[in-house]
């Protein structure tokens, strides 16, 4: 308990509080009047409105498109199902920068749609919404589909026997069981889209900005710290509220449902209605998920002078422009892997200890702690990055030029995933086994090693994989604190995209493709390790 709390206090609460303090504190003390002033500004009102509006629209659209998919994944058995499940999850762990890039290649200037039909959606709201759906499709599939697969179909059959019509049986039996899962998934999607940064930054152009992007602009471009501080607090409150509601729905979800083995509920596809449903879902996945990823790969190979690995080869050189990179972009891969490994180690230690502390206790305090651990998911990463710059600058903690700064920031985002994955498994370990081991003379450490570890090892690996993927893709905080001579993959991609010219664009696509492959491989490895019985949060 002490370690996670100290970690969060030092590397999360303190930097964020410092940057907010910078914005709201003057010689004359706290200026809380500024909050009202900022919120009354029309341009800020615009940002708040757009942030909320696009998050709602993205969530609705995601549900609309993903719910049929959740049903198909839950109830149908078809060849390639496992692979497809992995495929739809790839976007979720992709860095937002890459998602932005992929959609730029699809709907941007000179993108695929532009070449075929002359349609361009960049700098429109549609591009942002589509990218968000692409990003969060898996959240609904996993959360809702995972539960749906475990609902006992016999309950619905019983209702039918008692004379209910097909629809009535579904509405009275299955729907109520699904509602909490749908609500939890919606809230998660809403949370992610509400605090969207990379996607909006790349696809939005100057006209659209979410709170997160506005915090970045106000801080990095305009140095208007009071405004940035107020916006950070607004986001903080909003995310806190969302998380509160979310943890409430999760508790609702833990109510007694009779769950069965998913393998028993899935069946082969029968009849044309089911076939067309399956076909529709497969088509959706192909258009919405496979196509953007495919375009990305295609663009990365479309080198001057015919298809080939020209752009990939160029990644080994320092650019002719000289301005972007002090090192060949390819080195970014190595940097990223090192950072991600360190971040994973930190996240596992902190998250593991936090999860262990949470299983040992009960009650309100624990739920508060649980929500606290989720906060970094929704607090502006930009704020954290800047907070690091201004707080960690004195010995013994002058970490600003130290390499450890980046993994620390990335671990903050990884911890919630670790806790989410470990908690259900740890709760399932029977304490009496440990007591029995202690009675037989094992030291606490040995008891843990012999009893807990074998049970949680798999969950630990899955958590590690998630933390790793999340660290690889973290962009918002890293972009500030990564040293110019040691860029990570997403930072390098963003820098390449920020420079014009065919060569830079191609290299950005190539780097994104490499990043996507790394994420996809680690994800497939996870998919093999997935425990059968727990319906994971993500």
């Amino acid at each position, binding site marked *: 308990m002490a370690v996670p709390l100290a970690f969060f206090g030092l590397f999360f609460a303190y930097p964020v509080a410092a940057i907010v303090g910078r914005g709201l504190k003057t010689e004359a003390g706290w200026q809380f009047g500024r909050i009202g002033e900022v919120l009354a500004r029309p341009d800020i009102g615009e940002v708040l409105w757009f942030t909320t509006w696009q998050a709602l629209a993205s969530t609705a659209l995601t549900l609309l498109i993903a719910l049929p998919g959740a049903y198909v994944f839950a109830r149908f058995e078809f060849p390639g199902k496992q692979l497809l499940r992995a495929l739809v999850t790839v976007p979720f762990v992709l860095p937002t920068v890459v998602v932005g890039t992929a959609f730029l290649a699809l709907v941007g200037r000179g993108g695929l749609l532009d070449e075929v039909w002359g349609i361009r959606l960049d700098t429109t709201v549609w591009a942002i919404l589509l990218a968000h759906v692409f990003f969060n499709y898996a959240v609904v599939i996993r959360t809702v589909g995972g539960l749906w697969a475990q609902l006992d179909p016999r309950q619905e059959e019983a209702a039918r026997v008692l004379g209910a019509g097909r629809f009535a049986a579904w509405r009275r039996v299955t729907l109520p069981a699904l509602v909490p899962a749908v609500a939890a998934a919606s809230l998660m999607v809403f949370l992610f889209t509400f605090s969207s940064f990379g996607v909006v930054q790349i696809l939005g152009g100057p006209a659209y900005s979410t709170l997160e992007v506005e915090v970045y602009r106000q801080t*990095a*471009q*305009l140095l208007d710290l009071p405004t940035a501080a107020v916006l950070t607090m607004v986001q903080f409150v909003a995310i806190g509220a969302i998380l509160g509601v979310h943890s409430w729905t999760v508790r609702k979800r833990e109510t007694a449902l009779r769950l069965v083995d998913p393998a028993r509920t899935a069946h082969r596809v029968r009849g044309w209605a089911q076939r067309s449903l399956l076909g529709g879902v497969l088509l959706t996945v192909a258009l919405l998920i496979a196509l953007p990823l495919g375009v990305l790969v295609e663009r990365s190979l479309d080198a001057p002078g015919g298809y080939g690995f020209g752009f990939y080869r160029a990644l080994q050189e320092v650019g002719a422009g000289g301005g972007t990179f002090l090192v060949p972009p390819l080195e970014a891969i190595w940097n990223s892997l090192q950072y991600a490994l*360190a971040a994973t180690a930190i996240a596992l230690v902190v998250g593991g200890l936090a999860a262990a502390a949470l299983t040992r206790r009960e009650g309100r305090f624990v739920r508060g702690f649980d929500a606290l651990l989720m906060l970094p998911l929704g607090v502006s990463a930009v704020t954290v990055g800047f907070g690091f710059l201004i707080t960690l600058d004195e010995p013994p903690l002058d970490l600003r030029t130290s390499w450890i700064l980046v993994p620390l920031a990335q671990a903050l985002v990884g911890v919630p995933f670790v806790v989410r994955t470990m908690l259900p498994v740890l709760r399932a370990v029977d304490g009496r086994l440990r007591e029995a081991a202690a009675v037989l003379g094992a030291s606490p450490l040995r008891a843990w090693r012999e009893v807990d570890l074998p049970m949680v090892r798999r969950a630990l690996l899955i958590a590690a994989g998630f933390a790793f993927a999340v660290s690889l893709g973290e962009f918002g905080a890293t972009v500030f604190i990564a*040293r110019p001579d040691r860029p990570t993959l997403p930072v390098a991609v963003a820098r390449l995209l920020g420079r014009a010219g065919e060569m830079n664009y191609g290299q950005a696509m190539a780097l994104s493709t490499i990043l996507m492959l790394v994420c996809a491989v680690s994800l497939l490895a996870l998919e093999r390790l997935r425990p059968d019985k727990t319906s994971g949060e993500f």
Partner: protein
Amino acid sequence: MSTTKKIAGVALVAALGVTTLSACGGDAKDKSAGASDAPKSKTITLVSHDSFNVTDAVLKEFEQQSGYTVKVLKSGDAGAALNQEILTKGSPRGDVFFGVDNTLLSRALDNGIFTPYEAKGLADVKPEFVLDKEHRVTPVDSGDICVNYDKAYFADKKLAPPQTLDDLIKPEYKNLLVTENAATSSPGLGFLLASVGKYGDDGWKDYWSKLKANGVEVVDGWEQAYNERFSGSAGGKKAKGDRPLVVSYASSPPVEVLYGEPQPAEAPTGVATGTCFRQTEFAGLLKGAKNEQGGKALLDFLISKKFQEDMPLQMFVNPVTKDAKLPELFTKHGVVIEKPETVAPEAIAKNRDQWVKAWSTLVVK
């Protein structure tokens, strides 16, 4: 099945273990090499924006003569780099900061991030560039932000290219101009200030309303405007840019010649000389610098004849010293802007932020 899973698990653990070990090895190396200031007095760290460039040979010569090693830390665009320096005031990441221009100068001075130092050779700098009488900053280069036009487009259309700000709102130039976001890009801000200089504090909004009605497009940064949207640049031609007018620099046409494949005899783009705003870039010694002596030596070097004459072809800007000679490329293909628009530094200091806010509300939203 379970055995494969076990094997996969073991393999993953092993892989993680191995890479962690090697990562530790890498980091250990890093600590010794990357220690920011191992021999404290021998390294000078220059913090700058992404566009800073110098010929290796010129820098090496300075290092040999002075006995220092120079480390360059580039951190983002001009605005973001300066803001990071302001946020870390008092415990800077380097010794000298280069790249604060006259549009943002007051922000740097008000926040007190610089220590005054009168560089050796300041007497050779043209006096109009020395804006800070306390010498907290030293002028290093200057350039003009101007509208560029695509010569081929206007020749095709048998249309005279625009020359002044007034021309840009005429109907024959409707939907032709692309500019940058004044809130996030220094040429964008410069162009906004050009309009303030010409039409005054009360007339510029009216001008921009007309410009907006005439179809001006705003993108986030110079790269995007010049290399993607502008039809006259090599990059823009590739990206099928369709705007023949762009806010860029007076030195852009020479650059097009230099990087042309093959080099054209004449620049493919021209400069609308009545649309310009003069930008001056400064460098300063950071307060709390670990190596003050070295920092001072570096400032002297930045206004030395060697560096001033090397600069134009590295950063495409003009020298600020009286005796520095321009390279032939500039004298042949460049234009001299006789009368750029100007805004008094005090007025910029007082109004910049509200101008930018008003501009954003008017043009972008």
